[in-house]
């Protein structure tokens, strides 16, 4: 399939080939699913909503509910305001969510629909809530959309009512429900009261109970989102997906923001736990200390499996940044790090980290997988880490491949298990080691096949 990729890197100015990102609305939809009893609403054509639901369904293998304004030619000419008002009325009357979270699309943004005024003039039943976020698909990526929806939650809901609740706010970023569970588990272990938003655990990894629940029991409650304005501080994990939400909270409710890396790997997890500990005065409990000790033990046991191996990493910016830091700490060389999401901060951050290692590294924001493939052809790597679409590159170059990030469409269970925290770091080491050792076994001559590795 990739036989057309030339070895020499060719600069392209207009064409994107094999993207490493998708558009804002799907990120906004994912964030909105992390609010309890919320129905995300896509203000655009049918197709947008259908595509976003399909992508999330394929990644999480759970039902993904969202409604659409069902734009027609008329709406595109005269504006989608009346579609939105009808939609709000219909959604509350048939699907009965507690909250509707509207996100826009490239279409409704370009025709200039004024969402707040449509919401104002809609019939919203007593006790129900409608929020919105502008998510023009022609800016940023799905990560920007996630960030915008999180910001929207704060803008619409959070209030500082001058009654401190003693809690911490946690914004987990665009991570799997399994990661969100792990972040919550760590907070509970620290015995720190907290509000995490959004929280898709128990929504997109809900247990089988023999019936279909339009609104599974998970998700951040609207009440908690309102009260989040009274929290002690906000810890945002991942500056691309969570930073804006935390700064908005700081601006609107005077809740100080701390923006950290996504806690992937030992250092980022240390930073996360220490930050929480400092902010709250709670000591890191023995349970987590023990896990850290186990992780270090594993790192020692396995270091020769991957030391000096060259890796190519692609995916969402927060994920790539944190993972790059971790693989460096494992003694690996991150040769190429690429994200589809735009942002100079990405390249700066990666360059700074790799400068310490003394090896050369190519980092690119707003890149595509065609570029990554060209790089890999030019100078090969030992391992590729990224979402499912990497399988084409891995096959073409015959490189071991670890599936991590978003989306993963050809394997399952990934959304249930964490890559964050010490436990997640152990899992990452297991995946990386296994991929490399499986390759060694595959390629070993009979006489070189080792029983003990």
């Amino acid at each position, binding site marked *: 399939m990739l036989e057309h990729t030339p070895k020499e890197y060719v600069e392209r100015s207009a064409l994107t080939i094999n993207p490493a990102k998708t558009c*804002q609305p799907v990120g906004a939809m994912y964030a909105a699913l992390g609010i309890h009893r919320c129905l995300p609403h896509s203000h655009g054509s*049918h197709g947008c909503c259908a*595509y976003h639901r399909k992508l999330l369904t394929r990644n999480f293998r759970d039902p993904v509910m969202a409604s659409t304004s069902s734009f027609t030619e008329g709406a595109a000419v005269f504006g989608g305001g009346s579609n939105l008002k009808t939609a709000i009325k219909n*959604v509350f009357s048939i699907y009965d969510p507690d909250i509707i979270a509207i996100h826009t*699309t*490239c279409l409704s943004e*370009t025709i200039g629909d004024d969402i707040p005024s449509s919401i104002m003039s809609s019939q919203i039943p007593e006790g129900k809530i409608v929020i919105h976020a502008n998510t023009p698909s*022609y800016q940023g990526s799905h990560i920007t959309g996630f960030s915008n929806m999180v910001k929207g939650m704060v803008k619409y809901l959070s209030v500082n009512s001058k009654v401190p609740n003693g809690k911490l706010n946690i914004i987990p970023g665009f991570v799997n429900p399994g990661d969100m569970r792990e972040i919550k588990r760590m907070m509970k272990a620290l015995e720190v009261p907290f509000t995490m938003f959004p929280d898709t655990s128990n929504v997109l990894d809900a247990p089988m109970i023999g019936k279909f629940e339009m609104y599974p029991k998970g998700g951040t409650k609207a009440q908690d989102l309102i009260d989040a304005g009274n929290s002690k501080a906000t810890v945002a994990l991942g500056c691309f997906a969570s930073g804006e939400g935390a700064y908005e909270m700081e601006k609107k409710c005077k809740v100080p923001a701390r923006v950290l890396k996504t806690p992937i790997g030992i250092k980022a997890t240390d930073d996360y736990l220490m930050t929480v500990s400092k902010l709250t005065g709670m000591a890191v409990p023995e349970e987590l200390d023990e896990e850290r000790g186990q992780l270090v033990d594993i790192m020692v046991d396995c270091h020769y499996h991957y030391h000096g191996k060259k890796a190519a990493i692609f995916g969402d910016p927060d994920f790539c940044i944190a993972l790059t830091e971790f693989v460096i700490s494992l003694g690996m060389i991150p040769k190429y790090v690429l994200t589809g999401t735009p942002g100079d901060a990405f390249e700066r951050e990666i360059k700074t980290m790799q400068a310490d290692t003394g090896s050369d590294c190519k980092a690119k924001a707003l890149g595509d997988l065609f570029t990554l493939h060209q790089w890999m052809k030019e100078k090969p790597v030992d391992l590729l880490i990224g979402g499912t679409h990497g399988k084409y590159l891995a096959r073409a170059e015959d490189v071991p491949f670890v599936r991590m990030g978003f989306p993963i469409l050809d394997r399952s269970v990934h959304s249930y298990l964490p890559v964050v925290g010490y436990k997640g770091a152990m899992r990452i080491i297991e995946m990386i080691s296994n991929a490399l050792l499986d390759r060694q076994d595959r390629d070993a001559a009979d006489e070189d096949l080792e029983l003990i590795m």
Partner: protein
Amino acid sequence: MEKKPIVEILEERKNSIYFNIKDSKEGLKCEKDSLAGSVSQRACVYCGARVVLNPITDAVHIVHGPIGCASYTWDIRGSLTSGHEVYRNSFSTDLGEQDVIFGGEKKLAAAVDEIVLDMSPKAVFVYSTCIVGVIGDDVDAVCKEAERKYCIPVIPVKSSGFAGNKAMGYKAACWALMKLMDFSAGNFAPHLKGEGAPVNINFLGDFNLAGEIWIITDYLKKIGISIRAKVTGDSRVEEIMGAPQASLNIVQCAGSMIYLAKEMEGKYGIPFIKVSFFGVEDTALSLMRIAEAFEDIEVINRTKELIFIEKLKIRSQLAKYRKRLNGKKAAVYVGGGFKAISLIRQFRDLGMQTVMVGTQTGRADEYEIIRSIADEGTVILDDTNPVELEKYISEKGADILVGGVKERPLAYKLGIAFCDHNHERKHPLCGFEGAVNFAKEIDLTINSPVWRVALK
């Protein structure tokens, strides 16, 4: 027809749901826009155009718009190829804010330049997405200029999402295909009306999911009929350009291809017949219908023989599955009408009853057939949503749902089996061997031990 009062179902949706009563004259409301605010399972114009044209394997498909539309359709079709693979890549102009303000024509022209120079494709399709329809890029002009420059077809596909539903996208794809055929006008002598028995045929409306078109091509070869152009499963640009030369069109997925068949009939005088290769009966019937069109006794005899042999080959296998599936109940929610019709027959052949049947974009005439072959009391619905699906699956006690990607987890949450009869099918489900694969797949999921663990 008596409409039962349905609680929880919107007033506006009532005419899109029926409890089948055989003698009723009243029609089902279909081929209409979805309600604003529905959790519709439907897609858009772009989606319709993209899925139809995507299987043209040696063409480059450039999606002109922001990245999403290209990204969501990157190699998801499941159409197999016997040669070229360039169609499996994702190409986009990835329009940004500046392009939206100042227009995206220049970027599109540059993108076409880059791709033609890099990959020298046989043809380029340029899909207009929602935003292109609004900012007013003159995509036609850009394509025309590129065509002149590179002497290959550069075909605009007018597929702004808001301009209708998926069915409208099928039309847009058909117009693009007509344009491709026009490109070669003069190179080929088209078939003329009334020239006598057909010599070769085009196969419209099979997309070679899991290699299905190869099975049918093989049957046709055995009875002495060759396919001029496959539209569009495992097809190539040149083959489609030569389609006007054929003397008969067979149309499987009528939902997507009926426009093209009609257009080709009008323009090139090529008659068409509708076929379906899903299920033993429909496969046999369709093969006979094709053979008879050839008015050649040898072809007819060979076809009869093939059907006899193929049926014999699968008889014992199907009997085995019938025993295991007898009495089970099926619910069907698929894209188009023809597949729903075949599935009702196929389930009946396996001793199963279809208790609920719906489509995203079925046409009125197809719903008529569905009503005539479905059992009394079967729930029939158009453009439904998860709430309705859950309601009728549970009320009717279905053991399995047949659908596409968004329906799968819904079925699983309800604790019932599921079969993907859409892009994600893993085995060919058409023809005689496909009927066995289908039975096997249904058995595999319905009789899986997982349902003993899962709560009901």
